[in-house]
């Protein structure tokens, strides 16, 4: 469970914004998602994250799903889309802060075998 050092105070997401992006320390691009990520906002999230990757050329792209309450298949799809963009830019890709339901969905779709996914606390405790 090694994590990149967190910036001291991540900025609070703007109300209703599904995504906030900031450059973290050590060439890490932090992409924090919030609320429900579904077909209504998946394109927006993907566009913003891919644009930031192209712009910053980070070494690591870290998706933070701690604020996510629900993802549908489009939400899963956008994690794949950003992964592709990160790999194309030569960046490592990983997903942190999943809740148990979201982690379950990532397992179901096989994505936990594709890139590092931080297990939710309960699962981590159970497997420890």
């Amino acid at each position: 469970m090694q994590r990149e050092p967190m910036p001291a105070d991540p900025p609070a997401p703007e109300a209703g914004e599904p995504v906030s992006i900031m450059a973290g320390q050590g060439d890490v691009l932090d992409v924090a998602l919030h609320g429900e990520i579904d077909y209504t906002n998946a394109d927006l999230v993907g566009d913003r994250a891919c644009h930031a990757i192209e712009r910053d050329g980070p070494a690591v792209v870290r998706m933070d799903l701690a604020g996510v309450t629900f993802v549908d298949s489009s939400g899963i799809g956008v994690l794949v889309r950003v992964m592709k963009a990160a790999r194309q830019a030569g960046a490592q890709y990983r997903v942190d802060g999943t809740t148990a339901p979201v982690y379950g969905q990532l397992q179901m779709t096989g994505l936990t075998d594709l890139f590092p996914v931080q297990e939710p606390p309960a699962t981590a405790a159970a497997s420890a």
Partner: protein
Amino acid sequence: MVEAQQAYRKILERIRVAGRDPELDGRRVLDRAAGLLAGRVGCRVAEAHVQLTQLAAEQGRDAHEVAAGVLATLESRAAPTVGGPRAAIDEVLRPLRLNTTGPRGTGPVSEPPGGVPVQLVQQVLDSIPGAVAWLAPTRDDAGTVTDYVMAAVSADAVDIAGRSGTQLVGITLSTAYPATAEGPLWQAYEEVLTTGEPRDVGPITYQGHGEGIPAESQISVRARRLGSGLLVTWVRHDDEARYAERVARTERLGNLGWGEWDLVSGDIYWSDQLYRIYDRDPALGPARNDEYAALTLPEDRPLHTDAAAAFARGEAVDITYRLRLNGEVRHLRTVADAVRDAAGQPLRIYGIVQDVTARETARARLADVERQLREQEETLRAEHRLAADLQHIILPIPKEPIDLPGLRVAVRYLPAEQASRVGGDWFHAAPAPDGGILLAVGDVAGHGLAAATTMAQLRHALAALALTTTGEPAELLTQLNKLMCAGQSAATATAVIARYDPLSRQLTWAQAGHPAPLRASRGVTTPMPRPPGMLLGAVPDAEYGTATTTLELQDILLFYTDGLVEHRDHSLAEGLAPVITTLDAVSKRRPEDQPLAALLAQLPPANPNDDTCVVAVRPVP
């Protein structure tokens, strides 16, 4: 009495002396007037003093000013008409006593005989501003008041019918204001006469009758006993009330002007703001009708015609119309009403004009946006229809269970309820060239036309691959994944593909990130253990595992997409529970008692926000 007369004579003497003194100050004017009055009406000087001060206070005037008026009247007019002061005093003092008689126990005060005291009161009233009348009660033999005569009226007094001053003298209240007869006002008058306690009445509503009289007016009346009669002052509130309302409306609506048109006098008044609204120099005065009509946009003229007709019917007018002023169009709202007489004939028209150009512009912009939204919705609806049509063309759903060799298949497909959310769920159930049966259920991420298109590609590719390349589920998924990754779109999809061999009843299956099919066997339902495999479209070199199981005749397999169990408000496991319960119950029965169509109908309602595709299969002998 004698005392008072003597005092008065003294004062009179002093007045004669002081009257020659141009430097007479206000205080002395008051003293002098009080003395004169006391002498004339037979009260004490102090009382007259108090009277004058009160009178001044009631009128909001300086006591000295009032006193000077009284003095001027008494000296310049009263004295000459009654002959020497002495004679006047003697006559005046007899009948009229100003608040010197006790309020009770003295019995009805006798009517003032002759016109002298009345004349005196009239002289006093002549000198003061405001609407004041001295009413003399008329009584029947039993002493009961039957009516009042206006014995003296101030010059400023104007009554409801527009009569003023001397025109009112001698008129009885019952003829002048029939609506007040025997009413609360008269009751108050009688009480004042009896008790001597002053009374304030109103505001009361006066119902007018007759030409030139407003149908309704608000008045307040103050009555106090004066001698044997009543000194009555009144204020009409309708002017006040209308003004207050106008101000309130001004504040409320903002940016408005008002105008009045007195039909009787022909006077037209415009407020400053009205001139501003019309961009008109106040020096020019209000616009004439023809000037005004020339500004109105021709297409709005019918509005004015309609409004005029409504006004003639007695209705208030509220119209919004356009003017062209200095090359720009202005939207004006006019609210107009009239003061009318009892017959409904307008006496005076007053109107409020508001410049609502900004509001109208905003409204037009809003209408524009709404129209665009409607068009957009129409486009979305069209897209939804197209997606649904496409899905229907690509994916005809059998209404009845279909019988394939060794396998009965039932399909339930529920498109998302909401427009634009029809997605990319699909199924496949068809015999393969090698004698097996190919089954598949899939779900393309996203909704709408793009998802439906991807769904069509996958399904057609599967059918083609099954015929030409391979019947192996894992191999088929590998090919479909390559297809997805090769495309320009970043679409992803999940799927389960199974191949059933009716001879061996063996089921070989693979999955790409998709929920495992449920197997219900003799009342026990479990998800089948999933072989590894990730969703389609992530990485081109993804590998897919294979699982194999043998079905029994009483088994039911349920392939589904996540619309059946996925919901924002509960977990997948929670969504799965009622499905498993249903399958448990159905699979307990003998195969001939478990029609698949009925099973599908019993499944819990799908997530209305998502497509749901369910395929139930059962081996048949």
